[in-house]
């Protein structure tokens, strides 16, 4: 099964925002709330990742965690691929 590395997931995240006329900051510590990246955007990004890797993501494997920054999103989506 193909997996996406962190830069590839970052690129997809940029695409989600670009459709809305927004730009993804280069700084991974940027807060999601500040850039307007919301639940629907996160869900869309997850579907984009699933389409790229041809598999469903298992969010149960993620455990309890706080997702507040760009880096948190990228960490999560890289980590749960293939689980």
């Amino acid at each position, binding site marked *: 099964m193909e997996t996406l590395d962190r830069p590839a997931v970052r690129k997809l995240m940029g695409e989600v925002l670009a459709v809305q006329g927004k730009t993804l900051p280069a700084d991974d510590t940027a807060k999601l709330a500040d850039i307007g990246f919301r639940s*629907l955007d996160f*869900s869309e990004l997850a*579907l984009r990742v699933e389409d790229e890797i041809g598999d469903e993501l298992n969010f149960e494997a993620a455990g309890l965690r706080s997702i507040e920054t760009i880096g948190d999103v990228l960490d999560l989506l890289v980590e749960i691929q293939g689980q």
Partner: protein
Amino acid sequence: MIADNLVVDARTGRRATWGELVRHADPRPEPTAHAVEHSVDALPAVAALKDGGELLVVAAGRLDESLAEELRTDGFDLVAGDDVQAATSPRAAEDGRVWLLTSGSTGRPKRVGHTLASLSTVTGELAPRTWLCPYSPGTYAWWQVVTLGLGVPGQELVLVDPADLDDWVTPALEHGVTAVSGTPTFWRRTLMRHGAELRKLALEQVTLGGEPVDQAVLSQLGEAFPDARVSWIYASSEVGASIVVHDGRAGFPTQWLDRDVPGRPRLSVVDGELVITSPHHGTDASGAEMTGAVRTGDAARIEDGRVLVTGRLDRDELNVGGSKVSAGAVRDLLQSHPAIAWAAVRGRKAPLVGTMVVADVVASQDSGVTADDLTRWAAERLPEYAVPRRIKMLAEIPAKETLKSDV
């Protein structure tokens, strides 16, 4: 039976009147299920019904082993060409009974009983017409067109097999077709593939049915056939042809709701579902009349004085993070985009919000529209949660043998 009405097989070009067809019929006293490869092959058995008999017509491709076994157990001889498999539980025929197979809630075909009279819902005189019949043999829509040819003076038929529909316009031109009935999926495929050619067809009647009918396809057909009456019909095996609308608009007037008119179906919307009490309904497999109000399972909503039938209830309502979205309403919006020929909308499992709205779309030829363009366009017109976030661009409109969308 109108013996002089003509029937043409588009595949072979052969022409015959119903009077000639009945002379070639082989009337069978036993209940008979005819499995046919080609639409025209079923017609002699249909013509023979005038002398009685019990008949079920099914496309050969739809008849799997388990259905064949079920029919034989239910007392039907199974006839496919010269091959006859006798019923395993023989019984006497119920003269004049016609059986249709409809998709049951379990996915297994369910038998619904009719007669030629209950299938013939056209009332009053009709102008002479030559109808294209593109439907799969034995379906309700097929019987609707066939009974027109069989029982209404001046109604001729040109039969095209569903497998040959990529090029139905050529035989339609050749045989002088003036009226065509098809599903919205059939018409969208036609408009996409045969746009320029269609102008050569002198259609007087364009009919849609079998699937939700939106304003975009009605308007496109009105433009393609400016001299034709464009009608849509709501019909099913269970309730018959219950709604017929000729004004070129999607939906039907709210004034038609909860009206009692002798001989006409009573239409209601209950909890967002279309409910019909019909004088044209069939019987169940035991022969018992299906009376009373039928919950159709089709979603209906009222908008601008019209009742819009948007799709199957179990697939129409999507829950996106607690917000309710009508998949049919999103589909209708996408199909109103000038560069979109067809769209299907559904829910897809997603984290955080549970379900997201996604779509499959076919763009008009050479439009150059992209999925991102459509998402942005939809975002200007829909609440944020209803915007399709994943849009797959397909090259062709997918369709099943029933001419309905297979998505």
